[in-house]
């Protein structure tokens, strides 16, 4: 055999378990209707957000007081609200806001969480104790209550809502990444690298970080739904983005005073929330099942 052919052989031998693993994952994915349905729903959600201007027949803000409180019809799929705005368009544009919220909250909370967790796990002892106490302090509040308080104090804007939710959410990732960091830290190869002169930041960044990231990502998919629900809750209470922002929770609140006669204003945005959160939960469940070593048979 020529040397390239034999190199190919060794490469194939090395990759075979990984390939087998991947093929098994895909097999389980196809076999898990949950993950598939979840993926489809999320995809749908993302597409609606991206193509909002093309999908929405009207503007999210334009009022038409002659046309207020109309029931669902062909001109207005979800009816109109008390200011004559098309509820369907508002919900569609609201998808963009939700995507924005999810993206920013996730990024910020993971960043803070990983930082706190890895530093705590890596340096141990006093640093660890202090950082973990701080984590405990943030976890001592019920999520919504803390987020509400922060938003109220900072003033209700979309940015502040995002910051507030991120400040409440990071604790989970901190705990997870700390546990993983401790596991990685005790591995012999870390000592070896340190003996070769690697500095702590470098070790944390290039060795600990990649190992801690995957359970964090899994946890993130499981928590996406909660992020949306918290944001919607804040919006509903009036502590989210200020009107007339078409955030879904806020739209539900808009319709609250008319719930009995004009049920459509509150029902449809709430339905949108439920569907998207459902999609994330399906996906998260599916991902967790697929990665669970006990179920992977």
């Amino acid at each position, binding site marked *: 055999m020529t040397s390239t052919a034999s190199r190919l052989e060794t490469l194939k031998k090395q990759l075979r378990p990984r390939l087998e693993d991947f093929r098994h994952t895909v097999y389980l994915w196809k076999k898990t209707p949950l993950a598939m349905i979840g993926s489809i729903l999320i995809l749908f959600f993302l597409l609606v957000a991206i193509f909002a201007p093309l999908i929405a027949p009207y503007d999210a803000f334009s009022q038409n007081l002659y046309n207020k409180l109309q029931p669902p019809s062909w001109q207005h799929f979800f009816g109109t609200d008390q200011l004559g705005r098309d509820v369907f368009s508002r919900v569609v544009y609201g998808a963009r806001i939700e995507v924005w919220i999810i993206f920013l909250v996730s990024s910020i909370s993971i960043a803070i969480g990983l930082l706190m967790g890895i530093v705590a796990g890596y340096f141990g002892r006093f640093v660890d104790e202090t950082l973990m106490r701080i984590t405990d302090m943030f976890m*001592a509040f*019920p999520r919504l209550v803390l987020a509400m308080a922060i938003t*109220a104090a900072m003033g209700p804007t979309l940015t502040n809502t995002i910051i507030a939710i991120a400040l409440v959410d990071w604790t989970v990732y901190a705990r997870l990444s700390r546990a993983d960091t401790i596991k990685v830290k005790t591995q012999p190869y870390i000592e070896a690298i340190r003996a070769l002169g690697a500095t702590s930041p470098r070790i944390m960044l290039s060795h600990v970080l990649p190992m801690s990231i995957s359970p964090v990502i899994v946890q993130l998919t499981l928590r996406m739904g909660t992020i949306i629900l918290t944001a919607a809750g804040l919006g509903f209470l*009036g502590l989210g983005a200020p009107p007339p922002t078409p955030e879904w929770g806020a739209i539900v609140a808009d319709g609250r005073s008319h719930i009995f006669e004009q049920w459509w204003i509150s029902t449809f945005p709430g339905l949108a929330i439920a569907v998207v959160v459902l999609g994330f939960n399906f996906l998260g469940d599916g991902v967790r099942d697929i990665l669970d070593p006990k179920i992977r048979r």
Partner: protein
Amino acid sequence: MKLAFYILRRLFLMLIVMLGVATIVFFITHVIPADPVGAILGGNAPLETVDKLRHQLGLDQSLHVQYFRYLGGIFHGDFGVSIVSNHKVVDDILEFFPATVELACAAMCFTVLFGVFLGTVSAIKRNRPIDHILRVFSILGVSMPGFWLGLLLLLLFYFKLGWLPGTGRNDLFAFVDNITGLVLVDSIITRNWAGLWDAVKHIILPAFVLGYASAASVARIMRASMLDVLRQDYIRTARSKGLGRRVVIFRHALKNAMIPAVTVIGISFGDLLSGAVLTETIFSWPGLGRYIVQSLLVLDYPAITGATLFVAFIFSMANLVVDISYAALDPRMRL
């Protein structure tokens, strides 16, 4: 003995955490807001009123002094005076708290009973139709926004069907003497059966809405945990002893499967407190949650401070109880 040490250690840690919590709340209510007085009074208030309020709230002193006065106040159980109601915040909290306790307990009953039971059934009848139905219910439970569900149920049961009364804790005509502040308990003590029935009708819907999401979480973890336990070696041993399926599940599997579920039940208590905020708002339930929301909307800072601290304290205590019961349930945890 080991358990006692564990509890002491946790209590001590909690003290430290509470101090930090108080600091965080201080930060939120005193440091972040640009001008609390301006926000409360609006832009056109006369200067004397502004100064008077500022002095009243103690905001004219340096931050350090404010902080220590604040901490001192907390130790004495004094959270200041509410700007809105003009009562001491402590009194307001104690007035509204029982309603939330009642609601949370009712919801918790629902959560534990339904969650544990349905999760177990789901695991035992794995992949059969009942399992799929229950799983759908569960996943819906954690996906639907509580406030939306509450609104829809009100629409259905109150407006369309008229089976249940609307918002509030009780009708004007069903008056129950106030002994413990818990209407359900008080009406039983005073044998006020009409009052009890009225209270039950009022609490059903909000308790369901509040408990549904938590019940769903518990059911999910119960199912996963039970499935995991049923795969274990010791279950095989129990079966090989000739113990019937039912005995094996109730005596051997359940206690083991409950362990992760207890954690979720504990966490869900926090969600109950959070959710109470929304549920109480929807159903105009006169509890602490609604109090917090109203205080936040008008920026009644003393009330916000007091209520937030109080809620955090209750929440931490609940978590502590959960951790302790975790240690009591699982002998491996008593480190």
